[in-house]
């Protein structure tokens, strides 16, 4: 990271009674980055996010956002947009009133109509929040978070409950904000979104940052896989192919292209059909699953 980080977390700890929710956690997020903080349930990412957002006090360690204590709301919040995991709107206010209220309080300049257009809620502007669907509330939440194009945006499960069209629209809006230089911190259970969007990923497990890096860096540590099955009369393929409990075969390799070619050559030479052949690099899901064994 070349410039001063937008977020700097150093040896962060947080306990709830005897339960150590966050243990010696350190990470940084640079300007313009999209950093995805992922983790298993109960990994401590919500606690971490709440501390970085300034909603919760750290047990020990230091957290700096724009070089300031994130609890210094007057200094940090005008530059920060927060999309909460849950609604947090007053049911008796309309969509327009909700965006205007949070927008005015954010001390940033923007037009309510523009934001409602971005999240496709213009036709619901006069509708009370209590009458919105779950997906519409998420879009309203996003609209308030990006009011005035903040420099730093926290997106906590932003696409939960959204249909595919709304998801695409949300990510298009995030892309535009990033093009303008905004930094984004994302938590999500949709790993493919993190894989596609994040510049770097922090994988939390049991309160610690278990792994961190780009998708390529994270997946490099795990082998790619080739999966196939054979007809009953076919000969046994050579190692490293190993039989799976379901009768198929699995090849785990760090040299996917070479192993795949060798396998295809072996099959051609014996005129064997490789049924259901699947070959692919390691996915973030595999990295995630590997946490369970950690």
């Amino acid at each position, binding site marked *: 990271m070349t410039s001063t980080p937008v977020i700097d977390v150093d040896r962060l700890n947080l306990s709830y009674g005897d339960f150590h929710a966050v243990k010696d956690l350190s990470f940084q997020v640079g300007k313009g980055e999209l950093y995805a903080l992922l983790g298993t349930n109960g990994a401590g990412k919500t606690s971490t996010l709440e501390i970085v*957002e300034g*909603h919760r006090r750290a047990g020990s360690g230091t957290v700096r956002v724009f070089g300031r204590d994130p609890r210094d*709301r*007057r200094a940090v*919040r*005008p530059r920060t947009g*927060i999309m*909460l995991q*849950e*609604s*947090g*709107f*007053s*049911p*008796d*206010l309309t969509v327009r*009133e909700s965006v205007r*209220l*949070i927008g*005015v*309080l*954010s*001390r940033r300049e923007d037009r309510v109509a523009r934001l409602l257009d971005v999240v496709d809620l213009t036709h619901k502007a006069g509708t009370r929040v209590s009458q919105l669907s779950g997906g519409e509330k998420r879009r309203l939440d996003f609209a*308030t978070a990006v009011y005035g194009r903040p420099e730093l945006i926290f997106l906590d499960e932003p696409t939960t409950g959204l249909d595919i069209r709304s998801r695409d629209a949300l990510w298009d809006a995030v892309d535009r904000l990033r093009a303008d230089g905004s930094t984004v911190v994302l938590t999500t259970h949709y790993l493919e979104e993190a894989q596609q969007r994040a510049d770097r990923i922090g994988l939390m497990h049991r309160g610690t940052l278990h792994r961190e890096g780009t998708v390529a860096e994270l997946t490099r540590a795990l082998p790619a896989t080739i999966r196939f099955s054979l007809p009953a009369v076919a000969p046994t393929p050579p190692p490293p192919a190993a039989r799976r409990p379901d009768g198929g075969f699995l090849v785990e390799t760090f040299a996917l292209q070479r192993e795949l070619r060798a396998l295809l050559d072996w099959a051609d030479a014996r005129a064997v059909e490789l049924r259901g052949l699947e070959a692919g690099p390691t996915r973030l899901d595999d990295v995630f699953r590997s946490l369970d064994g950690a």
Partner: protein
Amino acid sequence: MLVIARSELMQLFRNRLVLITSFLSPVAACVFFVSRHELFSDLGSVGYIAAVVLFTVAAFGVHASTVTTLASRRQTLFLKRLRSTPESDVGILSGLLLPLIGLALVQVTVILAVLSWVAGGPAHAPLLVVAVVATLVMMVGLGLATAGLTNSPEHAQVTTLPVSLGAVAVTNWVGLTGTAELTVLKRLLPGGAATELVLDAWNGGAGFSESLLLLAPTLAWVVVAVALAARFFRWEPRR
């Protein structure tokens, strides 16, 4: 702060249940007392009616509404949402409570003005103003403290009862029996000293500076309430 107050006022008028329980019900009770002012002034004094009016509005329009509003806004995570902005905690709370306090002030002013018109005005109007302000501040403080012990708006229907009913009961006790006996106890109970202050202000007979000493117990309750609120108040629902 003012933008929060404006939105809160809109919500208040859109929620009929809150409007009826917090504002119309106390007004109806006060109208009853004022309309029967001859009967109640015979039982106590006109100052007693003024004290009952003040504490009825303060207990239900301010204390109970404060607790219900804060519990409700916390339950819907609206408080957390507001804390996601640069607005300070004091600004958020002031914005949320300003409409309640403002409406209570208007209610008390109008009802006491009507009482003055039909039964004669207060002997020391400035002292009455001090008593009204001190009472409302005390009930807001107790509301903040009670909100810390209240999990939901439904729970508020139970948690507000001790303070709301207690304060009204103390007002009736002090208003009807005076403070010649059990003086210290009556003055130390929440609302006791403030009731005596209203009686002095309306009925006269006590010196201005002597009466001002009665502010001390009321302000002490404010300090206690704020200390309790600082200890127990939560911005987010318990997990």
